[in-house]
């Protein structure tokens, strides 16, 4: 067993590791949220299935769906950097995708937990910001992977 220190992490590796961690932990959180929602449905919890809770239900489902997909997207981004290390590990794309992973599903989650009748709670203000950052991230990655090696 070697006791040699591991070589220093390259900037690209650091980004890859950050997105893998964020992606897999995000996946764990939002899949767990999905399981909670399924449980609420199974036991017909009044806070989730009763009339008047439609907005809460919609927002929590959107939080689960967006969170899960964005978590997978962060993993895919990490794998993209591995596949195309030269150009794709940009700070803008990385920051945008990480922020979107928190803001988009977080906004839906808060919007659902504090829904007011047919209107979501104030947390929904985070959703358009998260969506904008997701768009920025997607465009940034798209531009970078379009550059010929």
């Amino acid at each position, binding site marked *: 067993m070697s006791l040699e220190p591991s070589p220093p992490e390259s900037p690209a590796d650091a980004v890859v590791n950050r997105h893998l961690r964020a992606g897999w932990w995000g996946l764990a959180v939002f899949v767990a949220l999905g399981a909670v929602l399924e449980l609420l449905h199974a036991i017909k919890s009044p806070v989730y*299935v009763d009339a008047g809770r439609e907005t809460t239900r919609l927002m929590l489902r959107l939080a689960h769906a967006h969170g899960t997909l964005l978590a997978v997207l962060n993993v895919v981004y990490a794998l993209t950097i591995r596949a195309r290390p030269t150009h794709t590990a940009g*700070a803008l794309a990385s920051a945008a995708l*990480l922020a979107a992973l928190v803001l988009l599903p977080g906004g839906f989650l808060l919007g659902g937990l504090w829904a007011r009748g047919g209107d979501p709670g104030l947390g929904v203000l985070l959703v358009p910001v998260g969506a904008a950052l997701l768009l920025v991230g997607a465009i940034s990655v798209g531009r970078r992977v379009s550059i010929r090696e």
Partner: protein
Amino acid sequence: MVQASPGELALLGVIMTAAVALVVRATRGNRGVRLAVFVVLVLGTSGSAALLRPELRKASSAPTEVPGPGTALGYVSSAACLGCHPGEHASFGRTYHRTMTQVASTATVLAPTDGRALDLDGRAVRFERRGTEVWATLPDPDAVIAGGRADDVTRRVVLTTGSHREQAFWVAGKRRGDLRLVPFVWLVKDEAFVPRREAFLIPPDEPMPPVRWASSCIACHAVAGEPRHDLETDTFDTRAAELGVSCEACHGPGAAHVERHRDPVARYAQRGSKRADPTIVHPGRLSPELSSAVCGQCHAYSFPRDEAGGWTDGYSRTFRAGQPLDPSRTLIAPVIDAPATAIFWPDGAVRVGGREYNGLVASPCHERGSGDRKMTCLSCHAMHRGDPAGQIAPERTGDEGCTTCHDDARSRGHSRHAPGSPGSACVSCHMPKTSYALLQAVRSHRIDSPSAANTATTGRPNACNLCHLDRTLGWTARWLSEWYGAPIPQLDDERARTAFGVYAGIAGDAGVRALVADALGSAESLAASGIGFQTALLEEMSRDPYAAVRYIAARSLRTIAASPASSRPRTVGIDRATLALDADGRFDPERLRALLAARDERAITIAE
């Protein structure tokens, strides 16, 4: 100002902080990108906040006078039914039962709230919107009832009653929990305000009886309503399991059912079982008597056996769906001394619409039937299917409600009318529109057969002459005698020589005149009588002393004016003298005087 809870704001801050931390970490050493991302964050959040709906920024709460949550055991409200019964919840949501009582808002008030002045004896009544709230300016309702000087007051509209034909509006009275009516109602189909006193059939010189929501309406317009009236202070601490007529009105309290079926195993076991669920009432599986009683809890004239209990708990502790009516209330029957001119015809049929249970239980189809052949409300009606207006089951919209038992009626030419014509329908003859409610004629639910003799002795119109308004009662008697062997009554001279529509429309009592005014504009009578004689008659009826008769006559005139000109003028073949018309088609003044002299002037109040 946005109303937000501390928890909501705290979590909002946590998520924003987490996002900022991730951005800082991802943009280490790249300040330009970091700045760009922060700009997106700040501009996006503030831009979204600026676009918040004004209603969300300033949330409107329900009026404080809305009845509080019920205290009767076991009620959970229809909101708890949606999770497992979305289809039934949606079909119930389409009904006018659901919207019988609603918390007033711009979403539930059907009348215009533009502040227009509605004239009430020279005083202006107005409805106006404030955000999502509706407010009314009206003469102080308590002062009006006390008979003193009534200054104008402006109060928030708390509740609405009705949404199908009419809508009435309630504001807070001066005593705690008391709700008083705004003196105008909105006619939904006609899109018109009318003073409330003109929307009911009452004598012109009689004031409207004062009405309080918690004592007059709560028993039927809410689920498990509790007036909780304090006799000493004359205040109310009104409660209801739910406003409007919702799931638990017909299915009974749902708490045990909901609790049991939170368990998915129990739920799927029940879905796979053919046995009735003991935790909930299914009206379709009750005995005919108990099934009808579910509807009869509201659609009947009755009063509580325990009057004192009725003032405090209503029926919330003495009746629930699935139980017989008898222990909780006394059904008003024509044999006891209810005023015959207000509630019942002298032959025992109910005059008031909406009280169909009294008619049903007096029908031979209910009295003599048994098992599946005993008529109940569900023989024709379905609460979750069909047109919400009448809630007739789609498969029972024709004669099928009757031919399931009377299967030979059509084949033997029983109706003596052309197949498919309005006169051939079972209900046309056996459920004539001799009840009255909400400015219109309503079908009687006491199944019987047309009888000219009954009309002659009781004044209750017969089915034949409600279409053949241009024919005399004697004409009807002769045909009923020839076809069915019915007796021919003795008629006085004026009645014998005058078309029924003319005689009853001028000389009948006010309730009869209202029914005739309605019938004169009905599609069935226009098909049977043709268009020709009605205008002069309806113009005369538009001068009736009763406002309700005048309103209905005017409506029928509008209907006739809009009818196709090609309608068959049957009056050509009838002696004009029968119709009391002169050669120019105008009322013969002498005949009109004679009919007015013969008018039944008894004061009529249809006690809706």
